[in-house]
Every structure is written in structure tokens, then in C-alpha cells.
């Protein structure tokens, strides 16, 4: 009997080799994790596979990796969402019948991005930049400041000397940056507060929505390049953000209360454990 169980234990121990871990980990994930409901298979993206292949022109080969690091990619926006075409069919991937519109000409870039970013397009067209583009064909477009494929989440640092002194002095851009900075500071702080609260379990859908529309409206406003307008409306935005901050501070207070209440209960029960122990030690 003893030998039997010894043999079984050895079998158990020997059948778990620690070599080849990486490969089996991948195979394991393939088998156990990626099991899809009957009708759904993973979607292919032929745009990416073609553009990453050896036969592609070098300057176009870097696009997929740039896009993969972008904010668009993080939110599941891929090639066909902007350029059209069919990402699952090699033959018709770039067919106009499937909506493929390819690369926009320089003048058409704002309209290209503005199919989704409607509010920003409106402000941009009214701005000095937008008017210059219409009248002279020379102006910064969306791509100039945000890039074409490696688009990141917008921040105030996009306004910098290098980018903004190509056509005129940096002075104007600097004034704009200063006008934005107070509200921008508030936005960054509120954003951080919201993600801290989320990490601690408070999702706060209403507050997140209100914050998003406030800061989206503010960022859209900047695209008018109208410093006066920005300065006029700074107070309004500061107030709106202040309201959100107040509500958030309630939640922080609530989190504090929860911690304190739990500490109180911990001490109470720890004390009782000790008292019971003393009681036990008392000889009956």
C-alpha cells in the first residue's frame, strides 16, 4: 500500500516539468482562453497584415505600429473607420465600392477628421488657421499638431515653441497657452481624482460624463485660436469644474469615513480577542 501511494505521488511530481514554460503558456491560453461563441471568430485586419509585410513600401510599413500605440487603437478605431475599405477582404480592402477613400489631400484633412470630430471642425474652420487653409492652402491641420497615426490623448503640451513658430512668432501661441493654463490645471487634477476614485472602487458615471463634456467643450474651444474668447469663458469653465470637484471631495470624505469605521471595528474585535484570551487564562 505504501509503495502504491509513493508511486502515485512520484507520478504526480514527475508529470509537472518546469521546462518549456513559455510555449505551453501560450498553447494553454490558446486552448483555454480564446474559445469563442459558436458564430464569432476573431476579426482579421488585412490592412495591418499587408502594411506590415516585406513587400510594402518602407514609408508605409511603419504605420501599423504607429497606430497600435495610438489613442484611436486603444478605443478600437482602426484603419477602415477613417479610410474606408474592407478590413476582412484582401481583394476589396481598398475598393471604392467598399467605401475606401485613401489618404486625404492636405486641404481636405480637417474635413476628413471632422466626420467624427464635428465640434472641433466647426471651431477650427472659424479660426485663423481654418481661414488661412481655405484662402491660401497653407495652415496647420489636425495632422500637423496631432500626427496622422500615432495620435495620443490631447494635452496642453501640444502647444510648444517648436510646433507653433513655423509660420508666426511663438508669442501668440504662448498667450493662448497661458490663457488655457489655469483651466488646464483644474482639468488634470479632476482627471486624476476621478481615476483615483475609480481605482478605489467608485465608478461615478454621472460625474465622469459631466467631466468629459466640460473638458471636451473646453478643448474644442481652443481650436478657435481666439484668445479673447478663451479668456471670456475661462470663468464659466472654472465654475463648472469646481462643482465637479466639490462632489468628488464628498466621495473622498466617504472613502475616509469607510476606512475609519473599519479601523474602529478592527480595534474593537482585536480588543475582544485579547479579552477572551485573558478570560481563558483565568483558571475556572
Amino acid at each position, binding site marked *: 500500500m505504501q509503495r502504491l501511494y509513493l508511486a502515485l505521488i512520484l507520478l504526480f511530481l514527475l508529470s509537472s516539468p518546469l521546462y518549456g514554460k513559455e510555449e505551453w503558456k501560450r498553447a494553454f491560453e490558446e486552448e483555454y482562453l480564446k474559445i469563442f461563441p459558436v458564430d464569432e471568430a476573431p476579426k482579421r485586419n488585412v490592412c495591418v497584415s499587408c502594411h506590415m509585410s516585406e513587400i510594402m513600401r518602407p514609408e508605409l510599413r511603419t504605420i501599423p505600429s504607429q497606430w497600435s500605440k495610438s489613442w484611436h487603437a486603444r*478605443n478600437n478605431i482602426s484603419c477602415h473607420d477613417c479610410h474606408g475599405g474592407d478590413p476582412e477582404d484582401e481583394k476589396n480592402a481598398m475598393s471604392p465600392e467598399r467605401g475606401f477613400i485613401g489618404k486625404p489631400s492636405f486641404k481636405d484633412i480637417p474635413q476628413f477628421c471632422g466626420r467624427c*470630430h464635428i465640434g472641433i471642425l466647426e471651431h477650427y474652420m472659424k479660426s485663423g488657421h481654418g481661414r488661412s487653409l481655405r484662402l491660401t492652402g497653407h495652415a496647420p491641420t489636425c495632422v500637423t499638431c496631432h500626427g496622422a497615426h500615432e495620435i495620443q490623448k490631447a494635452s496642453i503640451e501640444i502647444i510648444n515653441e517648436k510646433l507653433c513658430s513655423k509660420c508666426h512668432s511663438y508669442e501668440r501661441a504662448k498667450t493662448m497657452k497661458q490663457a488655457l493654463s489655469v483651466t488646464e490645471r483644474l482639468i488634470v487634477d479632476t482627471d486624476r481624482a476621478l481615476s483615483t476614485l475609480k481605482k478605489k472602487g467608485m465608478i461615478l458615471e454621472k460625474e465622469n460624463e*459631466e467631466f*468629459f463634456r466640460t473638458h471636451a467643450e473646453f478643448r474644442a474651444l481652443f481650436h478657435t485660436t481666439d484668445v479673447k474668447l478663451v479668456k471670456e469663458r475661462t470663468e464659466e469653465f472654472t465654475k463648472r469644474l469646481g462643482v465637479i470637484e466639490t462632489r468628488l471631495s464628498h466621495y473622498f470624505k466617504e472613502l475616509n469615513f469607510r476606512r475609519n469605521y473599519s479601523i474602529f*471595528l478592527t480595534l*474593537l*474585535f482585536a480588543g*475582544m480577542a485579547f*479579552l477572551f484570551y485573558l*478570560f481563558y487564562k483565568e483558571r475556572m
Partner: protein
Amino acid sequence: MERRRFLGVLLSLSGLSALGSLIYPVFRFILPPGEMSSGTVLRIKRGDVPQGSFKELVLDNKPVIVIEVPQKGYVAFSRICTHLGCLVRFDSDKKVFICPCHGGTFDMNGNVLSGPPPRPLERINLNIEGEEIVIG
């Protein structure tokens, strides 16, 4: 004896406070929640909503929009886009709601036509009382 009595008293006191600090939350937990809706309503006149157009209002800190749907009458929706919370506008020519942030489009019944929004627009209660439209 003295010590035991003292321990007993301490134990009972801490036991009672432990019990209390657990029963009080349970009570608050079980008691029914207070009134959910605030009960405020907005009243506007029929004429305030231009034909084929819209009226934007604020009900209880919440932005709403009223339109007239052919064959259905007046409807009210929350203007908060179900994607990330921007405020939608009504395009009187295309007869759709458009969100300026990422182009989410909703039809006149609030259903998503295109774009990233995951759910239809929230309907807001609306009643007609004679010449008045009561929202909320």
C-alpha cells in the same frame, strides 16, 4: 474574582459596542431608500417648440431636448450622449441628433444610427396638458 468581574464587564461593554456597530449599519442597509425622483417638472407652451425644430431646456440640472416627431407628437430626451457624456444637438434638416464629440448619431426615437454610442438616448417623461407641455 475581582479580575474576572472586571474582565467580564470589559467584555460585555466591547461586545455590546461591537454588536451595535454592526446592527446599526444593517438597519440603515435594510431601511427603504428615500424618495428617488425630485418631482420637479418643467412647463412650456406648445408654441415654444418651433415646427420641425427643437427646444433645449434644463430639468433639475439635467440638459433635455424636446422635439416633435411626425405621427407621434412631442418627445423629450436627455441630451447626454450615451458614449462619453457630451451634449447632443438636433439637426433640423437631417432630422437626427448628432453628438459633436465623436459624431454619434441618433434617430428621432433616440435609437443609435451610427457612431460609438452603445445605447439609445434616455427618454424623459413628457405629458401634454392642454396647451402646456409638462416635462419630468
